[in-house]
């Protein structure tokens, strides 16, 4: 868990330092990319990218896949929530990147009425989640902001080598 935490902070810092740097990929309107070829906003935090033809960047597409493997059994299809856990497509209307990653990594317990508890597990040790936590965040962000109404996002044609390299090193590490 610690390891991922550090990696994340590093990512964040790196992201910030690069956000106004001379990154050459200029496909984006109003967004830049970090060194993993991930779109970032002005704060250097990951953000989805929707192209004019309606397709999305690799990370958003992959977030859809990873969400529907790791998260949907509790949080419902497409972040719509279930009888068991909250609708993340709603939660992310207000929840920021830092809080999101914190809860995913460390978990939390919410006391419900009648003494019942709702428990989010700590997934900090789970590479299948933590290596893709940005992917899942940008996917849910696209859902929360209505950029992605539902279903499987169309993905950009080429997947960047940088995203591939990051995935390989994260899963190994």
């Amino acid at each position, binding site marked *: 868990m610690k390891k991922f935490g550090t990696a994340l902070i590093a990512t964040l810092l790196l992201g910030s330092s690069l956000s106004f740097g001379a990154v050459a990929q200029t496909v984006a309107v109003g967004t830049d990319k970090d060194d993993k070829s991930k779109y970032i906003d002005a704060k250097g935090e990951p953000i989805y990218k929707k192209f004019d033809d309606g397709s999305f960047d690799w990370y958003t597409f992959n977030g859809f896949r990873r969400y529907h493997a790791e998260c949907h059994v509790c949080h419902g299809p497409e972040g719509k929530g*279930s009888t068991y856990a909250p609708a993340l497509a709603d939660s992310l209307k207000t929840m920021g990147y830092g809080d999101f990653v914190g809860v995913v990594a460390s978990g939390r317990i919410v006391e419900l009425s009648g003494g019942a508890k709702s428990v989010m597990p700590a997934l900090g040790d789970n590479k299948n989640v933590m290596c893709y936590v940005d992917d899942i965040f940008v996917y849910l962000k696209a859902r929360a902001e209505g950029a992605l*109404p*539902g279903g499987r996002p169309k993905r950009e044609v080429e997947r960047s080598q940088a995203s591939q390299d990051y995935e390989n090193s994260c899963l190994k590490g």
Partner: protein
Amino acid sequence: MRKSALTGALLASVAVSIPAMANESVTKLTADPNQWAMQSGDYFNQRYTKLDQINKDNVKNLKVAWTFSTGVLRGHEGGPLVIGNVMYVHTPFPNIVFALDLDQEAKIIWKYEPKQDPSVIPVMCCDTVNRGLAYADGIIILNQADTNVVALDAKSGKELWKATNADPKKGETHTGTTLIVNDKVLVGVSGAEFGVRCHVTAYDLKSGKRVWRAYSMGPDADLLIDPVKTTNLGKPVGTDSSLKTWNGDQWKIGGGSTWGWFSYDKEANLFYYGTGNPSTWNPAQRAGPDGKAIDQLYSMTIFARNPDTGMAAWVYQMTPFDEWDYDGINEMILADIDVKGKKTPALVHFDRNGLGYTLNRKTGELLVAEKYDPAVNWTSGVDMDPKSARYGRPTVLPAASTFKEGKGQDVNAKGICPAALGSKDQQPAAFSPRTNLFYVPTNHVCMDYEPFKVSYTAGQPYVGATLSMYPAPNSHGGMGNFIAWDAGTGKIVWSKPEPFSVWSGALATGGGVVFYGTLEGYFKAVDEKDGKELYKFKTPSGIIGNAMSYTHKGKQYVAVLSGVGGWAGIGLAAGLTNPNDGLGAVGGYAGLRNYTNLGGTLTVFTLP
């Protein structure tokens, strides 16, 4: 060494096999239709009551007699037991047990609430359900989420013993009921989505001492399989039959969960259950050393075992090298029926893979394997020729394969029917000896399935596929059917469409009425002959519990737990509102959340 351990186990079991006690008390109770002493009504899992006060003509007058709130909001599976004048009601996590006095308008005699670590909650993929209590010899057995098996004094609710069966920190949890046979409590475990190597374990009913454990995969000694005496479709399984079908050490995180409804045949002294999927859901990661499909025995398998020793008499694997999460855990129903014109001691099983199987329960011979939902499209059928090298194996249609000869990783395989929740999940079917038909609550759902690489961490989900589910295309647009099935011929006799999956256990009755619940919360009565709806009542929440019946002071009652949740609540709550699925048939139905809300209530019906 393996061999001697096995022999030792065998000798030990022989030495302790003493006359059956609890078996007789349960047998006696279940023979009396005024009581409901087992979750499934009887050892055969038939979910049939001889009671006939409520019949086709008067069921339309059914009224609510009384209700009881469990105070718990999670999905309520299973149902109450009635022993004498006491009803025993259980709840999902935190697994409270109530004893209600039927002589005093269901006054609470005692309440037992265990203390459990809430960290078990998120390990229970798909809701903190519990499929109910078991009873024998004045003892109530509660199978807690945190894998503690607890024996309670039925009179006082006092704890008699507690046995810890597994470890939730590794992803092992309990959701099923237990089966008490002879002097043993038989306990299964969940956790195939966490890379658990699952097992069935027997505890001594009186002391709670562990007697034997049989794993779903691994060495013969772990499996309690005899290479010579245990048969697979009539042939001895041979040495290390499971180990040979796994790549390296993968059997150690092999899955094969065992949380379904067990049944028992006293005459054969065998109990029956099915095992779940092999972990992970990404078949490419489970391929053999040569990169080809490999069976992964004994996941997806029907087991017949001796309850005293645990030794397997026969096995049959339904879905070798699973590519879709078609768990084999669904209930095994025993019935003596005509199969292709011949009176047969049958075992009937409606698998998640969409095939209804009929086997000879004494020998394990495969007699019928046919689709019980016409939408099923992953297979063209099972090879039924005993002389064939592929005898008993299903033929996978290439379009539905998610493995694709090793090239399926990161490929989205579309339009596979059924979806991972199966043409039927745990919701148990009923059998009526009046009609010789099986009444089956089913799902009518298909999926897109994309497997990808995952890494294993103990206690963390180990899934490895993304999937989208939707109503079966080109059909009635709903996600379920309630069907009548002829297991002797493998044919659907009638089928009643439902807007949502039918996730409630059915009850067939001597009055010719069949009961079941729906996810919107309707409790329905239909005619056993043609499925015509005779009565419905909207309970406070969606029904995923099972219908049961008993009498009190000579009057017949029918009861069911409502309280939406489970896989149904998670997978389907929002599943029908996808604007992009373009299937045409969706239109009329919004998500389940527009129909019902959380909350556990027992509703008890009777005639005025």
